[in-house]
């Protein structure tokens, strides 16, 4: 993407401030800045200019420069005069609101004073490719590199590269995953429970939505487990649930209770971490206002966890390439090529569940399936293209409000909640692939295995942040619990990237249908909009 450089200078009149603001708006649009973030930047810089005008008067001249350095776009404002930082309000009662506008989106403008010149600069984040596409590209690169190098590099040289370079890098990455995974899972579940509590306070509708989201995720996971076991035919223990099995199942679940509060965190024991987070979250909800400070601390810690997860997800494309090369060198190509089976099965199960939901809603709401699907198709394909429900959030909101007739108040809490905890398609994907992975590595499947896989798939899909690449983190923890070797992770990663496109679209469509049904139950449905033209 080419960024056009621009510079202009004029005195601080109202016309010039508006002109600068407009030019900044056009610049932000040209670099595809998200609309609300662009609005925040415009407002904050307008406020800074107003503060300069309050201090220096409107005769003072300000120069605007827009451009990019090392692909990183920047906005610079320069004003000649005494040292005056417009980012500090100095008790200016009119602009206090502007202080947190940019910090809220992780941008920090800087003010410096050099040779009689006030320089205010805002360096923006580098425009990034769609993360899912980036992962897809890195998977393709990994495949190509792996296949080429397997035939071009002699076996002995490959062994040396594996031993001295790739294995240490892989170990480091898994250590990073392990280190970040435990706290992130713990905090995500904890915040999800606290967040659910605030929705519950919204009344019966909030409680019912949470219950239905979780119920359908469990049902979807069970259907996926049954279909995957029947069709992919993994090695199933002969005595699927014998007396000994029952005893070990009971033993497994009793050992979910930790002996102390710290060891699960130190050992990254996911089931124990999830249990502690659930219990602690419930206790915080019961404590109510008295625990508000702690809830805020937990939320802040979770924000830090999210940032760390984002860092890990930025590293992921590199590791996808490395893991795939290693996988192909060590003979995982067959498993990789065979992953079309779980992928196809996942698509069929997800399509079946979506079809059932569409038919049910169409019958109950007296609207033809064709018309209903027509209304949802734009946001469906957007989520599919971006492989992200978050990226299609705006389109999904418009679809619910303007096309399906769901009330704004229901959308305002139901949609963010659903985006976090309602992941039926992702759960189906996780279950299907876990069974396939067990089949590939010859792991025996028992009732304990299935229940563990169900619990972990549902919890991880609902608790982990919807970031591209986080799938690898989830699969690494799930596989460790299910006794699936780490050699399956490269295959899981590629499958997760491919699953991601369909999962995002189906998750979003199921959420829209669920909100539509809830709107009807609570009298928040505008039937004229629903039955109107798409």
């Amino acid at each position, binding site marked *: 993407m080419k960024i056009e450089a621009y510079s202009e200078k004029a005195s601080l009149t109202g016309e010039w401030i508006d002109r600068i603001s407009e030019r900044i708006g056009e610049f932000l649009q040209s670099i595809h800045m998200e609309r609300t973030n662009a609005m925040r930047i415009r*407002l904050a810089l307008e406020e800074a200019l107003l503060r300069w005008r309050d201090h220096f008067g409107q005769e003072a001249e300000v120069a605007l420069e827009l451009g990019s350095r090392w692909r990183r776009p920047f906005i610079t404002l320069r004003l000649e005069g005494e040292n005056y930082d417009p980012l500090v309000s100095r008790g200016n009662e009119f602009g206090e609101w502007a202080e947190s506008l940019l910090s809220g989106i992780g941008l920090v403008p800087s003010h410096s004073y050099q040779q009689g010149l006030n320089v205010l600069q805002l360096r923006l984040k580098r425009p990034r490719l769609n993360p899912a596409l980036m992962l897809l590209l890195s998977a393709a690169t990994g495949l190509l590199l792996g296949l080429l190098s397997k035939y071009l590099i002699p076996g002995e040289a490959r062994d040396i590269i594996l031993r001295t370079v790739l294995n240490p890098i892989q170990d480091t990455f898994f250590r990073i995953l392990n280190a970040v995974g435990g706290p992130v899972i713990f905090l995500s579940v904890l915040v999800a429970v606290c967040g659910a509590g605030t929705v519950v306070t919204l009344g019966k509708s909030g409680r019912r939505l949470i219950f239905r989201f979780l119920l359908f995720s469990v049902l979807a996971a069970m259907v996926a487990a049954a279909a995957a076991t029947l069709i992919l035919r993994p090695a199933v223990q002969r005595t699927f649930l014998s007396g000994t099995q029952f005893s070990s199942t009971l033993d497994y679940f009793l050992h979910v209770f930790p002996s102390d509060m710290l060891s699960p965190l130190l050992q990254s024991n996911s089931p124990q971490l999830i249990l502690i987070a659930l219990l602690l979250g419930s206790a915080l909800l019961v404590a109510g206002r008295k625990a508000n400070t702690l809830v805020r601390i937990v939320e802040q810690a979770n924000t830090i966890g999210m940032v760390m997860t984002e860092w890990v997800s930025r590293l992921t494309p590199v590791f996808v390439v490395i893991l795939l090369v290693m996988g192909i060198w060590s003979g995982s190509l067959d498993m990789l090529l065979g992953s079309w089976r779980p992928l196809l099965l996942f698509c069929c199960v997800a399509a079946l569940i979506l079809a059932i939901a569409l038919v049910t809603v169409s019958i109950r709401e007296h609207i033809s399936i064709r018309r209903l699907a027509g209304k949802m198709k734009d946001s469906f394909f957007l989520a599919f293209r971006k492989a992200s429900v978050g990226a299609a959030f705006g389109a999904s909101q418009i679809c619910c409000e303007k096309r399906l007739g769901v009330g704004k108040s229901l959308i305002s809490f139901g949609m963010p909640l659903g985006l976090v905890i309602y992941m039926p398609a992702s759960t189906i994907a996780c279950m299907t692939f876990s069974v396939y992975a067990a089949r590939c590595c010859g792991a025996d499947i028992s009732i304990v295995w299935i229940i563990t896989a169900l619990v972990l798939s549902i919890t991880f899909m609902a608790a982990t942040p919807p970031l591209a690449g986080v799938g690898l983190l989830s699969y690494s923890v799930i596989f460790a619990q299910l006794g699936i070797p780490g050699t399956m992770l490269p295959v899981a990663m590629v499958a997760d990237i491919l699953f991601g496109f369909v999962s995002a679209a189906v998750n979003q469509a199921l959420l829209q249908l669920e909100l539509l049904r809830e709107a009807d139950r609570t009298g928040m449905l505008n039937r004229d909009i629903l039955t109107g033209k798409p």
Partner: protein
Amino acid sequence: MLGINKTINGRKAFFSLEGRLDTVTAPELEREINESLAGVSELTLDFEKLEYISSAGLRVLLATQKLMNRQGGMKVIRVKEAVMEVFEITGFSDILSIE
């Protein structure tokens, strides 16, 4: 361009704004408000036709809100989506009484 239609009825004032409330037009609104609000205890701002609001516009709203807190009350009605979005990201939706 900003169109301002005002109706003063005893202690009630009604301002209907049309167009853009930006750095150029915000002083016009400020002037109109300052001239009209003496003795007014109930101010209504109708934003049905207001397309855009800038930082300077927000300053005028905040100053007016502070003035009306002393004199009585102020409410903003029929806010368009684009303007509402500005109120939401700046936190003005919590400060102003919006209907």
